[in-house]
């Protein structure tokens, strides 16, 4: 009798151990925000990170593209309920949904990007966008012939204001006499996905004398970049490397390594090294930066790159202070 029980216990233990060791039931999930995973920008960067994880780990992930504001809660909740071990929510707007789902599923790990949710099972990844924007602002000022440069934001929210402020400081650092023309596309999430409006805003800025424009506007930004290409002006992309879209008229892209953040979140959750809390990724952590590649070769000159790299070192060392809009 005792023997039987002991055997049974052993078998159970063996099963449990093998279950842990194989870990093929590890299921990561990602929820993209409005704009969709092919916005060639923010969400696409997240998508690339998830794809890289899939390739490296050989584990497929669950995904959801939010297309309506009301879907967000449903999306995170559904992913958690489907048994995802980690749910990566992309975008500041998902904070409320993550907070709710994280409370309801205390055993599920959540990673939110671009926003802070203070719960024991949530990891918040935020970027120092102002630092990257500062550098591309310098590039814009150096490349501008008219001394006027433009900024086009998507939805008018503090995060985009953060881009705008860093950009403006960078422009004025490189050329104190320069002028920045600032536009926001709208005040609703539809502002992330209105390329025709983006192109109109860009044209209006060119009409007012700007010759370099920085778009931090998700899918709307594609219209801005297109418009710059049509009018032979320079444009700066955002989040993903967008230089390949219009070689020759793309000055550079302000990179925000959302892909790295997503990849790390999934990988660390798989390895068991995942930690809740806040992660701040800036220039020092290579969380933000600017693109130098074959497509903007010659447009972004060696001189500019040297100056920008010097400023980058100064920002990291604290010699240049870039204002964070959120701290104002």
């Amino acid at each position: 009798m005792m023997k039987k029980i002991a055997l049974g216990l052993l078998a159970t233990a063996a099963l449990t151990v093998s279950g842990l060791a194989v870990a093929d039931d590890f299921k990561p999930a990602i929820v993209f925000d409005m704009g969709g995973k092919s916005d060639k920008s923010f969400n696409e960067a997240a998508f690339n990170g998830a794809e890289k994880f899939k390739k490296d780990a050989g584990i497929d992930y669950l995904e959801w593209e939010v297309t309506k504001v009301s879907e967000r809660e449903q999306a995170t909740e559904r992913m958690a309920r489907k048994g995802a071990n980690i749910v990566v929510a992309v975008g500041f707007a998902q904070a409320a949904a993550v907070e709710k789902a994280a409370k309801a599923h205390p055993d599920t790990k959540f990673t939110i990007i671009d926003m802070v949710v203070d719960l024991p099972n949530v990891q918040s990844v935020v970027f120092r966008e102002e630092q990257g924007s500062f550098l591309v602002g310098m590039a814009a000022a150096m490349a501008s012939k008219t001394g006027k440069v433009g900024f086009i934001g998507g939805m008018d929210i503090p995060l985009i204001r953060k881009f705008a402020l860093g950009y403006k400081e960078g422009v004025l650092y490189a050329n104190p006499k320069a002028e920045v023309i600032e536009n926001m596309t709208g005040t609703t999430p539809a502002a992330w996905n209105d390329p025709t409006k983006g192109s109109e805003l860009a044209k209006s800025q060119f009409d007012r004398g700007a010759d370099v424009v920085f778009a931090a506007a998700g899918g709307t930004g594609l219209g801005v970049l297109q418009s710059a290409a049509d009018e032979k002006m320079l444009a700066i992309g955002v989040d993903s490397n967008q230089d390949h879209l219009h070689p020759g008229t793309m000055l550079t892209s302000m990179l925000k390594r959302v892909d790295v953040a997503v990849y790390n979140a999934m990988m660390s959750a798989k390895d068991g090294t995942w930690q809740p809390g806040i992660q701040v990724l800036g220039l020092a952590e290579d969380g933000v930066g600017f693109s130098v590649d074959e497509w903007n070769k010659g447009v972004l000159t060696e001189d500019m790159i040297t100056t920008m790299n010097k400023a980058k070192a100064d920002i990291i060392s604290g010699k240049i202070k870039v204002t964070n809009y959120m701290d104002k």
Partner: protein
Amino acid sequence: METFQTIILLLDATFRVATPLVLAALAGMFSERAGVVDIGLEGKMLGAAFSAAAVAAVSGSAWIGLGAGILASIALSLLHAYACVTHKGNQVVSGMAINIVVAGLTPTLGYAWFSMGGQTPHLGGDARFKPITLPFAEAAHDIPIIGYIYSELISNHNIIVYLAAASVPICAWIMYKTRFGLRVRAVGENPHAVDTAGISVDWLRYKALIMTGFLCGIAGTYLSTAHGAGFIRDMTAGKGYLALAALIFGKWRPVPTLFACLLFAFTDAVQARLQGVELPIVGVIPVQFIQALPYILTVLLLAGFVGKANPPKSIGVPYIKEK
């Protein structure tokens, strides 16, 4: 001189923004004048924008894209006609259904065909309608005022902008000077009279809806292959509804509708330029206020200046023949 230039550039932007509105509003005019409510303008435009971009991307020709856009829009129009004319269904429900179906179907098909998350590939070269420089525009640029107006405001638009401009007199002529137009107007006011005269009410409404599809197809094609460069999910962003508002605003007549569209487009263009500009006395106006401006203006005008709108008498009522 600088104010003058600003005004010209503002009007230039107005034309670009007004083009899809004008085409869609005229499209709505045919349908509504024939007695069929069409809130499906949005969906038809979106469907056309998608087909045009998809076909242009594959074929490399914007003209073939335009054809595909028109065909898709006419097909949706016929679906609307089949539901509300043949089967006497509720016109608002059918129109709304078209909007919802298209909003879901376009990204789904786009995803299946191009695997780009519901977008179509980026269009360049001949797959896109390019601005046309009218003759002598370059030379005329330096002539004060008139030359500047000609080269900046009149020249350098793509073909669809000119098409939209031409469509207003053409549609007015069809509506008021042809037999077809007279019958369309009659069928929207009093279908019994038309039927008594021995003309098929259903067939007439079908024909009017085909016209609607045709014009809406051009409007949608403009969005994805002329103004933009590729299809993006929900890229019509409410323009179909705005066109419908302009149509009501313009009392279902072509020329007042044109002005309503221009007004909407103008406020939109102003709005883009007023942001962050320091104005005399008031200073910088908050972005939110400026973005609300077009809508405030719409409400004010609708409430105060338009007066009573007289819709076609039998609009929204399916025609059932008395046995």
